[in-house]
């Protein structure tokens, strides 16, 4: 995962905006704040599709989205953009009329919304910085969740396997008054299963500690 400072140097923004005046303004602000910024503009949703369908397209690390494109707008537009850009922060540019929709879209995973008439270079800069910080945080949590899901799976399948065997052997011993030979055999099996479980538990503990270590490094 790239750090923000790195991204800032190589920032590449996709602006979905059909209005020329609004676009020029945003472009100016971006260049003022991030001198080396790469800006790609799409005027319509079909422009955007054409751009993203191109396999040799430049890597985009931020999207600025106007809520009214000629061929798609509002909620549907937001949902499509978010679904296709899970790892890329998206900031909405809106007028006063869409303020409610813009606010609601935060729940859908939009990082921020800016009211066009109020945008200044410093507001835009701050919003972008926050968006990156938030998206890095979210990605970090997602990565952790993935590890936790793996641990849960291991607990359920790998740890429970020897445990279930131990319980099964105990069931068996309880149901029969075996000869001593048999009992010794089952005791040996109990020891094997217990050792196996011990090893698995130790491994899981190590993995959990790894997660903590990773946190400390960052």
């Amino acid at each position, binding site marked *: 995962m790239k750090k923000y400072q790195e991204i800032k140097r190589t920032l590449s923004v996709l602006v979905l905006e059909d209005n020329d005046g609004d676009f020029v303004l945003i472009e100016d602000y971006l260049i003022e704040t991030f001198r080396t910024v790469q800006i790609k503009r799409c005027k319509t949703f079909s422009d955007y599709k054409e751009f993203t369908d191109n396999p040799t397209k430049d890597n985009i690390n931020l999207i600025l989205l106007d809520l009214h494109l000629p061929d798609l707008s509002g909620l549907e537009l937001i949902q499509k953009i978010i679904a296709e850009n899970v790892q890329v922060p998206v900031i909405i540019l809106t007028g006063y009329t869409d303020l409610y929709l813009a606010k609601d879209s935060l729940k859908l995973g939009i990082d921020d919304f800016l009211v066009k008439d109020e945008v200044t270079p410093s507001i835009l800069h701050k919003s972008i910085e926050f968006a990156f910080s938030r998206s890095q945080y979210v990605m970090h949590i997602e990565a952790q969740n993935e590890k936790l899901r793996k641990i849960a799976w291991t607990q*359920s*399948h790998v740890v*429970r*396997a020897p445990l*279930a*065997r131990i319980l099964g*052997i105990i069931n068996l011993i309880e*149901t029969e008054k075996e000869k001593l030979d048999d009992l010794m055999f089952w005791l040996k099996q109990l020891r094997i*299963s217990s050792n196996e479980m011990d090893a698995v538990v130790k491994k899981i503990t190590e993995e959990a500690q790894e997660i903590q270590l990773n946190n400390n490094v960052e």
Partner: protein
Amino acid sequence: MLNKTIYIIDDDPIVRFIIEKMMSKMDSTLIFIHCENGKVGLEKLNGHQGEFSKCIILLDLNMPLLDGWGFLDEIQSRKLNDYKNVALYILSSSTDKPDIERSKKYSIVKKFYHKPLSIADITEILDMHIKPAV
């Protein structure tokens, strides 16, 4: 009348052995067929097809070569009529909810048991499908 056959499909030999011991205590006429994975299970089950007697399958999920899900997919893709004498139970160490939900998508699965099988579980499995010899 032919004896009932129990297919134990599990990669853990100790687990298979425990199940056989426990079950044969309750019905000494049962015939056990051990399969160390789903692939072996399918092969041995193919030989069983056409026989009149009922059979019970105890299926583990997490196995090498062909796991329980792969086994179910294969069984399900065949005609269910071929399996009207078959009672299939999942027997897994997994207590994962997604596994239990997933198993419900297979109509051939009668029930999902967590390991180990208790006496009550075995009574349930045997009584439901095997009438005691008179």
